[in-house]
C-alpha cells in the first residue's frame, strides 16, 4: 500500500462510533501537488476523515498512508510533515500572536519564521496583538500562518472557510494559493462552499454518509457529467440511455443527467422531430444531482459508480 505519487491513500478506511459508521470503506487518493476538495453534507464524515489522518482517532478497520507513512504506526512522522488548520480552532485569547507562533515553534524540529511573518504581514496582523482581540477572519489567517511554520508537505484545512465573511474567505483562499508555492506541496481542504472549492481545487471527493461516492479531477468531472434535454414534439416518450439518472419526463420533453457524456450521445439521441441538447453543469449542480441519486439509489447498490479517476468501482 505505497504509491509515491500520492500524498494521501486510504484503503477501506472505516470508523464506527457505536452503531454509526462515520467512515464506511473509504478509498481516497490524493495526488501530490493537488488541491483536493473533500465535500459533503453535514455529518458526512469529513472531519472524522481528517482526524484519522492526523491519528487523533484510530480507524476501526482499514488504513491510511500519509506521505508514505502509516498513520497508526508512524503518527509522529505524519504530524511532522502535515500542517493542520481546524474550523474555529480554539486559540488562547490571552496570548499574543508572536507568543503563539513561538509556542508552536517549540513543537517542531524545524521552523521558518519568515513563512509565518509573510502570511501575517500581508493582511497587517500586529504580532503584538493578543489573539482575543482578533476577528474570526484574522484568527483563521493566524492559524494558517502558524500551520505553515514548519513548512509542511501537506496542508489540511478542515472547514477553514466555514463561517467567514467574504473578505476573510478571499484572504484564506489567497493563502492556500500561496501555500502551493512550495514545490509539490499538497492541500486537502474540506468544506461546503462549493463555489469557493471550485475556484481552487483540481481534485474533488464527495462524501455522503461516510462513503466516498465520487472522486475525480474537476476537469474530468465537468466534461463527463452533463444534463441532457431531449425535445420530442412528435413523440410522447423517448428512450433514456442506460445509467441516466435524475430523469424528468415532461410534456414532449425529457431531461436527465449522464455521467459518461460523449458528443456521440447527442447524435444517437437526435432523430426526425427530435433534438438533444447537452448543458454543462456547475460543480454545485453536479453534486446536488449526484447526492440525490446516491441518497435514493443507496439501497439499490448503485453507489460509487462514477469512480476514482477511471479506477474501477
Amino acid at each position, binding site marked *: 500500500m505505497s504509491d509515491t505519487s500520492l500524498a494521501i491513500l486510504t484503503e477501506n478506511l472505516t470508523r464506527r462510533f457505536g452503531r454509526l459508521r462515520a467512515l464506511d470503506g473509504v478509498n481516497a487518493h490524493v495526488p501530490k501537488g493537488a488541491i483536493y476538495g473533500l465535500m459533503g453534507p453535514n455529518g458526512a464524515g469529513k472531519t472524522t476523515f481528517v482526524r484519522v489522518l492526523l491519528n487523533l482517532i484510530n480507524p476501526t478497520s482499514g488504513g491510511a498512508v500519509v506521505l508514505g507513512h502509516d498513520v497508526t504506526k508512524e503518527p509522529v512522522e505524519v504530524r511532522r510533515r502535515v500542517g493542520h488548520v481546524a474550523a474555529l480552532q480554539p486559540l488562547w485569547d490571552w496570548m499574543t500572536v508572536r507568543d503563539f507562533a513561538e509556542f508552536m515553534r517549540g513543537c517542531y524540529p524545524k521552523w521558518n519564521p519568515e513563512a509565518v511573518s509573510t502570511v501575517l504581514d500581508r493582511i497587517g496582523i500586529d504580532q503584538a496583538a493578543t489573539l482575543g482581540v482578533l476577528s474570526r477572519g484574522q484568527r483563521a489567517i493566524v492559524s494558517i500562518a502558524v500551520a505553515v511554520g514548519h513548512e509542511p508537505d501537506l496542508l489540511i484545512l478542515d472547514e477553514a472557510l466555514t463561517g467567514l465573511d467574504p473578505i476573510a474567505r478571499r484572504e484564506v483562499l*489567497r493563502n492556500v494559493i500561496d501555500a502551493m508555492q512550495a514545490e509539490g506541496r499538497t492541500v486537502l481542504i474540506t468544506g461546503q462552499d462549493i463555489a469557493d472549492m*471550485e475556484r481552487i481545487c483540481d481534485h474533488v471527493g464527495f462524501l455522503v454518509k461516510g462513503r466516498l461516492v465520487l472522486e475525480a479531477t*474537476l476537469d474530468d468531472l*465537468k466534461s463527463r457529467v452533463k444534463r441532457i434535454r431531449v425535445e420530442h414534439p412528435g413523440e410522447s416518450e423517448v428512450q433514456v440511455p442506460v445509467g441516466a439518472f435524475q430523469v424528468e419526463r415532461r410534456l414532449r420533453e425529457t431531461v436527465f443527467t449522464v455521467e459518461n457524456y460523449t458528443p456521440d450521445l447527442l447524435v444517437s439521441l437526435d432523430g426526425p422531430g427530435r433534438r438533444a441538447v447537452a448543458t454543462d*453543469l456547475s460543480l454545485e449542480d453536479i453534486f446536488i444531482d449526484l447526492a440525490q441519486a446516491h441518497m435514493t439509489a443507496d439501497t439499490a447498490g448503485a453507489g460509487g459508480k462514477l469512480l476514482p479517476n477511471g479506477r474501477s468501482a
Partner: protein
Amino acid sequence: MLVYYNNSTKAMFDSINPKSALPIYRQITDQIRWRVAAGVFAPGDKLPSVRELAAQLLVNPNTVAKVYRDLERDGLLETRRGDGTYISSEAVALAESERTRIIEEQLRSIARDVRAFGLPGQAAMDLFRRILSDESAQRKDRR
C-alpha cells in the same frame, strides 16, 4: 466619474465566475483568446506570472499553468526562459484565424438551432444577410 488607469496586462483580466457551468480553464483561455483576436493583447505584451494571475483571480495555479501551456502550444503565447510569458510574435497572424474560429463556433450553435426548428437553409442565410446589413447601417449612422 472615477477612472482607473493601469497599463499592466495583469489588470486586464476580468474576475472569473466559479458558479458558471463554463470551466475556469475555459473562462481564462477565452479571455486571452478574445483579447488577442480583438487586438487588445499585442505581440510582446508580457502576461502576469502563473502565481500572480492565480492569486489575482483566486484560482488554482495548476489551472493557470495549463492555460499558458496550451496557448503556448497553439502559438498564441511564448515563454522566454527565466523571463516570463509573452504574447507571441505570431499572434497578429493568429488573430485573424482566432476571429474566424470564434465566429465559426457561434455560427455552429446557431446552425444546430436552424436545423432543429426546420428553418430552410436559404431562409436562414437571407436572415443573416439582412442582419449583417442592418448592423453596418447602424454603424454608419453612429459615425
